[in-house]
């Protein structure tokens, strides 16, 4: 969803009231409310010690992260930090992970994550990676699903508002990113009301099938509309990509009204195989831009940043046949391709029907040159020549559609707050179920792929109100689990979520649960500051910089008594968790540090930087309850005034311990 709905609940409620009247006229709301029947509890009950059937990955929206839930229980399994700093595990705070959040604007501690996308093989989720977009400062992240960690982030140049992202092609060759906000390209200082003349959109195709090597293959320069969502073709439409756009009015102020004038906006149908040809033939112009590519080196588990300086840009004027516009009512939001790859379903936010385009008709219309006009080198196809059908009276505010693989489509209706089930081909509505309240995206595991696992549907709602015990003005966003295995949809479960899940994806747990990494092999740790055994720890000074190499193991740090640090020094604690056992983590925090703690997975090295402000003795301790003697897992670091004669000392080796004993005797 692109509208900050949570913040405009009042507006939305007013909208509901207004359209309620229209809706009453539209009529035919199912009398039954499809509420829980007696066996719902048993259908979502996952007994203690048992596992859920699916992993669901939900975007965090304005939290910038990804949350992982088990389905059908709705239990929260994990938060994966992606675009926002996460003090809980030092993501974006420690020296090892900070480079992931580097951009041409400098270090950015937050973003708005919208659409998780699973990697696919032959159009089916394969459980290798999860991609997710940053909307505000356009970026795409790759999350490795053997570790549930962000491994790579690429910035998208020539883009503002990376909303139509990071939808994947059937074999994960590309993920995409399109500009929600058109901007001057290259971005320069121009009057805002020169929008129609100087503002442009871009559609970016990013290679994604090589971990650590994401790169922008090419960008397509587009008319200055708002590009909203996208989906790849599959099967017969493999090689094509579909993006919705709105604001074909090209308004630059009060879009609410000014961008809602035209009866139809466009779906951009992109033939990316044709784009590849144009690139191969040199039709794409290299453009000087700057963007960052950040990735985690697996051995050192340390992120590295590289700045890239060029991108290939295709102007459709110079690459005929690369893009066509499909007229689509009205201000379309979602664009979803059915499992067969034939039907392209649009969610026209303000439309009274759900239009469905046919890929077969699209090809014929192109062959017949059934064009209305051409916009900036892009032919606009005739609506009647491409539309396969329209779902009549579906409800109000259609946004997104997913599929069950059994010939049915499920569309979320924001304004009438319901999920509508309809039949592909006949376009008849067969069932509807209310949601609580104002659903945005919906998700069926694999529901946008070639082979959906059509058992459950999750509704992700924008307004929560009275669904849970109240928690002040702001409530957690709410999701609902709906059983779609029968003819009638049945509500099974409500569960609160983290941040604002926009979209989610899910897949059977069996695809990833047995591939999980349990610890990092210490022998393979290539971090330059690794300490592989107690005897290897120590302390070194280089000017005002102090580096302490330290190990953590149940239940002590070594060294744990450190002296010789002076006010004015910058102290780097390089702590290695030398455990080689599953789920045995240690933490590290030092009094007065103006940063987060460290959380150390078994076998890894992380760095906390501390600038002591005054003389004294400062304790440090383990923050993750690791063992029976966790409370004993602590140490001290002594800070002396600048210029002090206290010797640099860390009690690691027997010799150092002897020296420490001697020093104490002398006192």
């Amino acid at each position, binding site marked *: 969803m692109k509208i900050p709905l949570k913040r405009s609940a009042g507006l939305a409620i007013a909208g509901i009231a207004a359209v309620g009247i229209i809706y009453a006229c539209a009529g035919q709301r199912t009398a039954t409310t499809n509420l829980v029947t007696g066996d719902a509890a048993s259908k979502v009950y996952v007994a203690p010690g048992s596992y859920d059937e699916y992993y669901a990955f939900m975007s965090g929206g304005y939290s910038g992260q990804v949350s992982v839930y088990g389905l059908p229980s709705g239990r929260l399994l994990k938060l994966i930090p992606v675009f926002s700093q996460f003090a809980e595990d030092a993501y974006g705070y420690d020296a090892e992970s900070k480079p992931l959040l580097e951009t041409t604007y400098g270090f950015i501690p937050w973003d708005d994550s919208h659409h998780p996308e699973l990697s696919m093989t032959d159009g089916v989720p394969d459980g290798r990676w999860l991609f997710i977009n940053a909307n505000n400062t356009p970026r795409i992240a790759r999350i490795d699903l053997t570790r549930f960690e962000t491994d790579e982030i690429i910035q998208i140049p020539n883009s503002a508002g990376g909303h139509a992202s990071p939808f994947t092609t059937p074999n994960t060759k590309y993920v995409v990113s399109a500009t929600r906000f058109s901007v001057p390209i290259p971005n320069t200082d121009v009057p805002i009301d020169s929008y129609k003349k100087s503002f442009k959109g871009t559609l970016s195709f990013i290679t994604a099938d090589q971990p650590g090597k994401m790169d922008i293959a090419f960008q397509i320069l587009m008319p200055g509309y708002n590009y909203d969502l996208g989906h790849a073709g599959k099967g017969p439409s493999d090689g094509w990509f579909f993006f919705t756009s709105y604001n074909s009015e090209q308004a630059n102020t009060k879009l609410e009204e000014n961008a809602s004038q035209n009866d139809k906006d466009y779906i951009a149908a992109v033939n990316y195989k044709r784009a590849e040809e144009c690139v191969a033939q040199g039709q794409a112009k290299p453009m000087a831009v700057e963007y960052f590519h950040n990735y985690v080196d697996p051995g050192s588990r340390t992120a590295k940043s590289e700045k890239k300086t060029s991108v290939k840009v295709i102007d459709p004027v110079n690459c005929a046949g690369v893009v066509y516009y499909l007229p689509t009512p009205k201000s379309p939001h979602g664009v979803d391709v059915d499992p067969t790859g034939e039907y392209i379903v649009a969610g026209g936010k303000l439309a009274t029907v759900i239009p469905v385009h046919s890929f077969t008709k699209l090809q014929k219309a192109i062959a017949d040159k059934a064009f209305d006009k051409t916009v900036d080198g892009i032919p606009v196809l005739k609506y009647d020549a491409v539309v396969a059908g329209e779902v009549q009276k579906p409800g109000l505010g259609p946004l997104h559609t997913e599929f069950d693989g059994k010939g049915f489509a499920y569309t979320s209706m924001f304004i009438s707050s319901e999920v509508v089930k309809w039949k592909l081909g006949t376009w008849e509505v067969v069932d509807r179920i209310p949601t609580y309240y104002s659903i945005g995206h919906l998700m069926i595991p694999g529901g946008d792929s070639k082979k959906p696992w059509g058992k459950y549907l999750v509704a992700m709602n924008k307004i929560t109100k009275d669904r849970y015990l109240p928690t002040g003005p702001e409530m957690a966003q709410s999701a609902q689990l709906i059983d779609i295995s029968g003819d009638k949809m049945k509500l099974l479960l409500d569960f609160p979520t983290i941040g604002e899940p926009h979209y989610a994806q899910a897949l059977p747990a069996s695809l990833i649960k047995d591939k999980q990494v349990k*610890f990092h092999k210490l022998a393979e740790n290539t971090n330059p500051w690794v300490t592989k055994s107690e005897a290897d720890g120590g302390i070194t000074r280089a000017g005002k910089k102090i580096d302490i190499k330290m190990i953590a*193991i149940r*239940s002590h740090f070594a060294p744990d008594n450190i002296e010789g640090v002076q006010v004015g020094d910058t102290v780097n604690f390089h702590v290695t968790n030398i*455990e*080689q*056992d599953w789920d045995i983590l240690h933490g590290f925090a030092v009094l007065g540090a103006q940063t987060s703690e460290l959380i150390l997975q078994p076998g890894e090295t992380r760095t906390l930087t501390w600038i002591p402000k005054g003389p004294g003795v400062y304790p440090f301790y383990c923050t993750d309850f690791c063992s*029976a*003697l966790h409370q004993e897992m602590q140490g001290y670091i002594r800070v002396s005034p600048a210029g002090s004669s206290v010797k640099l000392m860390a009690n690691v080796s027997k010799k150092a311990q002897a020296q420490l004993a001697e020093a104490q005797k002398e006192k």
Partner: protein
Amino acid sequence: MSRIPRMLLLLAAGLLLVAVRLPLWRVSLVAPQYPEGLGMVIDAHTVRGAKENDLGNINALNHYIGMKAIDPTAIPELRVMPWVIVGLAVFAAGGALVGRRKVAIAWLASFAALGAVGLWDFWKWEYTYGHDLDMVHAIIKVPGMTYQPPLIGSKQLLNFTATSWPASGTYVLALAFLLGVSALVVTRWMGPVATSKPARAAGASRVAVA
């Protein structure tokens, strides 16, 4: 001895060679925190973790009770044991070759004796590790508590249930021993060598010697 018992002895020799490469004993440790369990495997030549790092993790836990780190290089018997088993195999093969009952009996007797010594030695190491605790540096001190795992069966050691059982190698060794016993039994059943039909080669050599 006739052909069948000699073949049995040869087979026993082969099994002994197989057993050298198989795990002989397995000690598993399960605790509330270790539902997946930790385990130790005793091979003829070494002690190792059942899973990667299990031995290191067992040692890491044992430091709490003051137990010495289990280090296979500190157990000299492990350097000898493979050769003892290989020696028994050679002995058995030799027995098959000469085909004399007394040799087979001598082999079985030494096998039994060495097996008994081996078990005693294993028990003694368990005893040593379980009792020889560094009470100065031990973190958890339970008066009167020792940590000797059982030779066979289960025993509760603080939060861990230690279970010890012979592993495949020991069963193969036992089978080799039983084959030896059978060879003797078969020899007795079949009576004197001369009446044995298939023992022509052996009979011939005997004639030559005579």
